[in-house]
């Protein structure tokens, strides 16, 4: 877990990538619109339309309308050719609008993925051709089995395996460890990761992954029509919409004999218009666009999802497992105070502590130096060069931390300074027959009780004092947990700390539960236990030992910097390596469902007004009493029917922005959210078409 630390701030490659993506693709980018308009026609093919039962019915209706229009040129019993032609054109537009919605969502997804790809292409690869000559290729064009050369200063363009040579590699971009590592052919240190930098020497690397198999490519194929699979909720909704369609088919078909009984001939055009208006074309037309847009939004958040289902599941999450370090707290513990022993001036303690920490490159050690500096003590060496082997302290011998001694320190002329865990220093001091000052014992206990870690400093076997190391909770994280709680998601902190410390941090950060002294198998057990209680669990991880838990979790988000095993096991990859990204993913998932639900409600609610437009229009002539139902006072039967069909068509493009952006999610509790959405999309869905149809009627009535 220590590998998790500090990985994100210094990740230059990813930051450029991020810049590219954060520049959101404009909603209606002209180039995308042109492409989408073309696609709208291509998608008219019945084989493609069949996937969407509602719109397929519209297509069949449009086709019949075409025949009726042709017929009406030579016969007079089906209404005027002009009127029929207009209905035909409007129906065709309805289809094209729906196709356009899907096409633009796809195009935006592709555009986003392309911009992601471009950043990868910027890394040139020196590939070795069969004849031994070196050819420069873009990294995206590398194929599995290709061999490339990397020399001092090169960025490794792709994941691969060293087949020849040895090199020191800076993997800080991935791991956060600034110390270079050695990679060499053969053995278990032969694999290199794309985005890391060769510091010295030269290696020949063979590409191990097919570029087309990367997660990004997988996601793009999910966005594009071909391999896009419907998610479970989408399937259920399609079934419900099909049910509505069948009901309205029955309503329309039986209206013909009803009309005959009432001695009112109803033209085929009017029946088809009624049918198309009644079936849920608004949601039917936007359904796939909504699903694709959900994936797009995940991509915008720099999360690559391996399936649409994972995004949807994210909206249902009940429990989220988060690692403490790096997620809830800022990377590492930091020194927060010095406690001098009785009779020791604080300056002495700070001086010794600083000297003992100068050579300590761990974040804890650095933080001690910083704390002392902030209190006014600056050792000259701090300002000097840290590459000096003696750290500006002539004759010094650095004692590195070891698990055995559980302490570290420095040996100078006549000075032997140690800092370490209380027990370790106690042993050391007591062996020399010295006692631990009473106040230090008390201080150590108090620090532990507060969830901190005490570090005791001794010079020449005399205890000078203690340093308090504290976990710093990330600013703003408490608010994010509060938001999650309002969404109904439980947060669980996972930490290697002892239960006391864990509890303290958990309370401070506002998480609901914690797993202390966690081993990788504890995560897995916790996930299983939650799942057995019927909950959906998400976790984020990067290490190989996280892989089983990532696979077990309903949503496993692997960090891009993580090992291949972790990335394979999870169902999402976060390019930013930001563990709090789960919160955004949950919201995207919820938005996806909400957008579908509200547009379904809107679509069905629209039917009320359409009935009041079309039904009186059908019967007004033969049953004048039904004029009373024409509450919108539409000008004529023809204008009423046309207004309804036109409204039905143009509402689709008008709602495309909403479908692509998603309906806003507010964590206000399910009841309040439902009431709000019902008011806006249910009541709104009833009122809006009354206004819309009336307005259209006002415009077209004088024209026909």
């Amino acid at each position, binding site marked *: 877990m220590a590998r998790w630390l500090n990985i994100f701030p210094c990740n230059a490659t990813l930051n450029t990538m991020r810049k590219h993506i954060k520049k959101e693709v404009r909603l209606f980018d002209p180039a995308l619109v042109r492409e989408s308009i073309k696609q709208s026609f291509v998608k008219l093919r019945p084989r493609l339309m069949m996937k969407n039962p509602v719109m397929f019915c519209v297509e069949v209706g449009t086709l019949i309308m075409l025949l009726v229009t042709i017929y009406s040129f030579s016969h007079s019993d089906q209404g005027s050719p002009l009127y029929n032609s207009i209905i035909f054109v409007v129906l065709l537009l309805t289809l094209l609008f729906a196709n356009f919605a899907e096409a633009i969502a796809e195009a935006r997804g592709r555009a986003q993925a392309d911009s992601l790809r471009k950043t990868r292409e910027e890394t040139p690869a020196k590939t070795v051709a069969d004849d031994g000559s070196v050819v420069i290729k873009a990294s995206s064009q590398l194929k599995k089995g290709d061999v490339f050369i990397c020399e001092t200063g090169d960025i490794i363009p792709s994941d691969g395996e060293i087949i020849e040579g040895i090199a020191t590699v800076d993997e800080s971009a991935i791991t956060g460890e600034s110390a270079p590592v050695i990679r060499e052919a053969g053995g278990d240190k032969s694999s290199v990761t794309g985005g890391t930098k060769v510091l010295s020497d030269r290696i020949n690397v063979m590409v191990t992954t097919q570029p087309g198999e990367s997660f990004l490519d997988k996601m793009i194929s999910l966005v594009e029509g071909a391999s896009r699979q419907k998610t479970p*909720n989408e399937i259920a909704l399609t079934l419900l919409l099909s*049910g509505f369609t069948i009901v309205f088919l029955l309503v329309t078909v039986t209206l013909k*004999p009803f009309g005959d009984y*009432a001695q009112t001939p109803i033209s085929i055009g009017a029946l088809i218009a009624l049918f198309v208006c009644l079936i849920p074309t608004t949601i039917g037309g936007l359904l796939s666009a909504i699903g694709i847009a959900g994936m797009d939004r995940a991509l915008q958040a720099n999360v690559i999802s391996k399936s649409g289902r994972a995004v949807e599941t994210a909206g249902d999450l009940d429990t989220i497992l988060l690692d403490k370090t790096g997620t809830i707290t800022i990377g590492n513990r930091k020194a927060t105070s010095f406690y001098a022993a009785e009779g020791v001036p604080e300056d002495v303690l700070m001086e010794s502590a600083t000297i003992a920490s100068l050579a300590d490159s761990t974040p804890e050690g650095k933080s001690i130096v910083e704390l002392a500096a902030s209190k006014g003590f600056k050792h000259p060496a701090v300002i000097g060069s840290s590459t000096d082997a003696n750290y500006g302290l002539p004759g010094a011998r650095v004692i590195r931390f070891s698990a055995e001694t559980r302490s570290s320190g420095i040996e100078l002329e006549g000075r032997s300074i140690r800092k370490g865990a209380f027990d370790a220093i106690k042993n050391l001091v007591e062996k020399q027959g010295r006692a631990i000052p009473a106040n230090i014992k008390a201080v150590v206990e108090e620090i532990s009780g507060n969830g901190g870690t005490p570090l005791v400093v001794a010079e020449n076997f005399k205890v000078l004092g203690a340093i308090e190391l504290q976990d710093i909770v990330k600013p703003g994280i408490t608010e994010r947990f509060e938001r999650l709680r309002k969404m109904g998601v439980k947060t669980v902190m996972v930490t290697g700390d002892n239960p006391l410390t864990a509890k303290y941090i958990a309370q401070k950060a506002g998480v609901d539960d914690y797993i202390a002294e966690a081993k990788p198998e504890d995560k897995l057990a916790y996930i299983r236990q939650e799942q057995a209680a019927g909950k959906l669990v998400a976790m984020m991880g990067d290490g190989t030992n996280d892989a089983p838990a990532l696979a077990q979790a309903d949503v496993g988000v692997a960090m891009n910097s993580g090992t291949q095993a972790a990335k394979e096991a999870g169902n999402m990859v976060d390019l930013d390596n930001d563990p709090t990204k789960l919160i955004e993913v949950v919201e995207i998932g919820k938005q996806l469902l909400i957008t579908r639900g509200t547009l379904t409600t809107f679509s069905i609610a629209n039917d009320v007004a359409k009935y009041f437009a079309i039904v009186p229009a059908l019967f007004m002539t033969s049953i004048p009493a039904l004029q009373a139902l024409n509450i919108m006072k539409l000008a004529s039967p023809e204008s009423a029917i046309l207004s309804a069909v036109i409204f039905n068509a143009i509402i689709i493009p008008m709602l495309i922005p909403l479908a692509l952006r998603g309906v806003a999610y507010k964590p206000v509790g399910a009841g309040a959210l439902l009431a709000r959405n019902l008011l806006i999309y249910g009541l709104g869905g009833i009122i809006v078409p009354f206004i819309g149809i009336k307005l259209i009627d006002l415009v077209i009535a004088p024209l026909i």
Partner: protein
Amino acid sequence: MNSEILGIVVLFVLTMLLAIPLGKYCSRVFLGEKTWLDFMLPAENLIYRICRINPAKSMNWKENVKASLILNLIFFLWAMLILLTQGWHPFGNPDHITSMEPTTAFNTAISFMTNTNLQHYSGETSASYVTQLVVFCFLQFVSAATGIAAMVSLFKGVLQRQASDLGNFYVLFLKSCTRILLPISIVVAIFLVFRGTPSTFEGAAQVVSLQGDTVSVARGPVAPMVAIKQVGTNGGGYFGPNSTHPFENPDYLTNLVENFAILIIPMALVFAFGYYIRKPKVGYAFFAAMTLVFVSFVAITVYFESAGNPMISEMGIDNSAGSMEGKEVRFGTAASAFWGVSTTSTSNGSVNSMHDSQTPISGGVYMLDMMINAIYGGAGVGFINFFVFVIIAVFISGLMVGRTPELLGKKIEAREVKIAALVAILHPLLILTGTAIASQIQTNNPDIGWLANPSFHGFSEMLYEFTSSAANNGSGFEGLGDATPFWNILCGLCMLFGRFIPIIGPLAIAGSLAGKKYIPEGAGTLRIESPAFIAVLLSVIIIIAALSFFPALTLGPLAEHFSL
């Protein structure tokens, strides 16, 4: 408030107040907890032993459906046998009634088996005492019990966690008879006898009228039949005119009690659901939703019936008593309108006035009520129908709050939505297709002689008949010459599908829910007792019914209303 209105308000409030404890009692019966009727146990055990039923055996949804269907097939064959042979019975037929015409017998057998009790015959002239008792009276018990048993399986399905047991059909069926239907029916029957309803095996009485004519007055074992007709949401009257007949419904008091009997079990079962799942609030919330629709319907019909027929007012005739055509003077307009909504809400179908003669809007409300068929609804099946709407509402509102829809801790997925959608389609399919076929035939053969009234009202007569059949209601708009093979067979099929598909489908849903994992409630879970959900539920119910039938209702009741 005038006394007529006061009468129905008191009736409604009392019924509601009694329905709560009865609901609690029913849930105890179904949960197998102790009740004061446990002394029936030896009798029940005897029946199990005779029928070789193991009451401890658990049954999954398929076994429940199978048992229910087989038992109902036996009932159907039994009814056909008696109806087709009643003319030859050596006893119990003092008035020498002949055997029934086969298609009418088919229609009648199905009608009583399916708890519809649509009557294309007249009891006093077409059914012997034996038939009245062993077919009609008997089937009114067992058909109600079939519905209640199915509903309890549904309750159990909601409560089960990763199990397949939906309860033993035979036990649920028998207990519904012995613990619920029988005790209430006995009380109601005794009350009716005290108020003057006959209960005798002597043949028709010969009465000399004041004018000196001898009149043959039909009678028979009327009281027990009327009691179960109301209690079991059946509606099959002993006499052709049903509860308008003075022997079936002698006075205002019997009218109150009968109307109470119509509503009490359907209302109680809604509360029973809440108690059964240990969430009484859910029962109250569902009840409130239904009541909102019920009360609105009552308000509309009472208004239009009390206002009277505008055409009569125009003629200068005093119309202050309201529209009294087809109504009994002893009941008045408010009690008749309230009964009309009660009987069409609960799939009962008994009438205390002629719906045909009511104002067009009231007739339309009755049809809409049956088209919804889930406002309290028939014994057991009413709640089942309501449950289908609940599934659809849960699905839509679940999406609207951004969570995979859950009903009481069970995920609602494609399978449940598919079945619910199919069941929801069924009603429009039966009603609209049936009416379309009839309209087409009527249009092509204007002299076929089906319709007593031309134009919109005639259309309403056909629409009402199919609606009543599909909803297993059984009330007739009348004015329709329906005792012909066409109507007998087509309505018979409507009743059959309208009965069993809405039982099989929801039981399949219950089976699927029972097998699912239980998801504990969290802050993001939508509570189905919340007002927001109830609003969605009501919208779903009204919109599905209204959207499916708006054009049909426009051409019938609405066109008639606006033409007045």
